């Protein structure tokens, strides 16, 4: 009970910080706090494997990717983190849209059938309890094998897409670009114009 409220307050605070931070690096820090708190929330909901995955994949991989891109872009000519925000011009409509979303989701959630199973199903950490790694693994590799394979396919497509988008063009097409000699082209153009 207490853990829930602490985590909830921390999550909302870090989410607000993420959204309102001036620099992307600060946002990453806020997001990291949010993800760690969410992992705690997963533990509280008896989703052990997801809690670990949350830490490993989100905090470990995705956020590092963000940090790398920020570092990469910040090394350019212009500082990346300056720039105007749409606030306060659009913050009010955004807040209205968000409030409507909140009301809609909350109303729907509170309208769902109240016949909820709230019995404890094994304590967290038991070998075959609900949400344990064994439980999740059986569900993932037997009943949901096809979605798991599709996941692998999605990741492969994403990797190929990233290489195609961000990679060197020559590396993708296999063409070899001739080393450019500065001045050559200008002289050719000049010759052509002279003729």
């Amino acid at each position, binding site marked *: 009970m207490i853990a829930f409220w602490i985590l909830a307050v921390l999550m909302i605070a870090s989410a607000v910080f993420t*959204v309102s931070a001036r620099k992307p690096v600060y946002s990453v820090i806020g997001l990291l706090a949010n993800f760690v708190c969410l992992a705690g929330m997963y533990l509280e*909901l008896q989703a052990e494997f997801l809690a670990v995955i949350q830490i490993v994949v*989100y905090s470990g991989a995705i956020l590092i990717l963000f940090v790398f*891109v920020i570092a990469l872009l910040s090394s350019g000519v212009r500082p990346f983190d300056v720039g105007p*925000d749409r606030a306060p011009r659009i913050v009010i409509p955004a807040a209205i*849209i968000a409030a409507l979303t909140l009301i809609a989701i909350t109303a729907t*959630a509170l309208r769902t059938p109240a016949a909820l199973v709230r019995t404890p199903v094994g304590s967290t950490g038991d070998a075959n309890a609900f949400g344990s790694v064994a439980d999740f693994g059986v*569900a993932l590799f037997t009943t949901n094998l096809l979605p798991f394979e599709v996941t692998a396919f999605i990741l492969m497509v994403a990797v190929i897409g990233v290489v195609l988008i961000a990679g060197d063009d020559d590396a993708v097409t296999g063409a070899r670009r001739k080393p450019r000699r500065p001045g050559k082209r200008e002289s050719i153009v000049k010759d052509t114009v002279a003729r």
Partner: protein
Amino acid sequence: MSVAPEYYVVLSAVLFSIGVVGVIARRNPLIMLMSIELLFNAANLALVTYARVWTNNAGHVFAFLVITVAAAEAAIGLAIVAVTFRRTPFVDVDEVSALRG
């Protein structure tokens, strides 16, 4: 679950709303992407909550798939941001119109 599941769902809705504000009101593409991650996580929290409510771990598998898709989305989105920034340095997504149809 000592706390009623409604609290978790309402918390998820609050996080989702904060993410929506971030996507709409921020101009920095990286912060927009991070707000999208917030949206994914809010959805995941709701999924895991209902999985716990009905003690059915299909919700866990679904959340796992969402995490995977979020990873793919982050990778591709960041690649697009990096490439676009490499061509024309920008800090404002409104300046970028190369993908406009």
